[in-house]
């Protein structure tokens, strides 16, 4: 008898979740499509003036990415809770927080990474200057995992509740205000040729904190949610 080692268990869970996402790869395209549609609507709504579009481009990109992630987060734990896989994870000898962290990582790879790939395209459609593009991508790379981690905690909490996407949005809004402020702040500073390192550093500090605390809070929330 030998229990599975922690690292191989984490790798296997990550592999399984990525495999599951791959088996349903049509679903991966949905958030990307959603972000493109919402982003495309803006020029129609406010007019095609390049100067105006350039000014709001980074804000539009962040808000659409945030909404897409919110949509895809809804089902993060639902499948596992409904088919009994969550009980298998909770009974496993590995710390639940680590396993949950792997699930969040898998979610980030399948839901947020494609969004980051199309974000520069969306931004240039909105006349976002190419010179500030690296800062935009960097800000997305730091802020999307933060949103995934925060969102995962809330999804875990709402796991035992009656389904409600609206409730999730209401709970996530206060948590993501600082993320949006610093991410969009860094990008607009770069756009104006101002130093953008400070807000980016705050974003990084927030991410470092969330990487440690997020999975722990998420595991605690899941234990409360399964406690019925």
């Amino acid at each position, binding site marked *: *008898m*030998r*229990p*599975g080692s922690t690292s*191989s*268990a984490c*790798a*296997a*869970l990550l592999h*399984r979740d990525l*495999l*599951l996402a791959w*088996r*349903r790869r049509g679903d991966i395209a949905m958030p990307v499509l959603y972000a493109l549609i919402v982003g495309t609507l803006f020029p129609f709504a406010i007019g095609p003036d390049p100067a105006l579009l350039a000014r709001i481009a980074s804000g539009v990109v962040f808000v659409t990415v945030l909404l897409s992630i919110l949509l895809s987060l809804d089902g993060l734990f639902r*499948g596992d809770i*409904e*088919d*009994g*896989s969550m*009980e*298998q*994870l*909770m*009974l*496993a*000898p*590995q710390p639940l927080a680590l*396993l949950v962290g792997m699930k969040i990582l898998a979610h980030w790879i399948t839901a947020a990474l494609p969004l980051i790939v199309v974000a520069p395209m969306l931004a240039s459609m909105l006349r976002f200057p190419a010179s500030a593009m690296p800062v935009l991508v960097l800000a997305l790379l730091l802020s999307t995992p933060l949103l995934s981690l925060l969102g995962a905690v809330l999804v875990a909490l709402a796991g035992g509740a009656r389904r409600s996407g609206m409730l999730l949005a209401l709970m996530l809004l206060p948590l993501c205000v600082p993320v949006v402020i610093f991410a969009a702040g860094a990008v607009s500073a770069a756009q104006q040729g101002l130093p953008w390192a400070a807000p980016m550093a705050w974003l990084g500090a927030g991410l470092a904190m969330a990487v440690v605390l997020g999975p722990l809070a998420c595991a605690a929330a899941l234990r409360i949610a*399964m*406690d*019925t």
Partner: protein
Amino acid sequence: MTVADTPLLEARALGFLRQEEPVFGPIDFELRAGEIALVEGNNGSGKTTLMRVLTGMLRASEGELRIGGGAGSLVFLGHHLGLKTDLSARENLDLAVALYGRRDDVTLMSVLAEVGLAGYEDEPVRRLSAGQKKRAALARLLMLPATVWLLDEPYANLDREGIALVNRLLALHAARGGAALVTSHGAVTFAGDTLRRIRLHA
């Protein structure tokens, strides 16, 4: 006191209250190596709640619960089988093994043959029948080194042959030093001689 003497699972005055109303208990029992215990009771007598307390999903309201083997020594099979329907039996078992470890004397093929799923190892679980899905979940039990099996209504949705299979697996598990706690609301014809009964009253 030798290792064999320590109970694998021990409950002392264990009880659970919901809204201040007792759902079950307080009950006392212990489970030693080689023992199979059948938890009997009508619908609503708290069998599933007892199982959730034993797995640690729920916190007992009163009494004590001692698990001999520590983390990973329990394995649970409930109404939901814990199988991903988009994955094959092989892929499902791979994850279980990575989490819980694998028994040295078995292989994927041997356990699938044991439950009668030989040849279905790469079929997505979605395409299996309800009975075959249950067999795939039973294969997981056989594969893992966990000593205590907690089976919630394992006989549900099974034909005569399936019931015989569950009984055979339980006997095998007991023979190799494991223990199991099985719930059932109906009469079960379990052939083993080591059967103990725990009654829950509604």
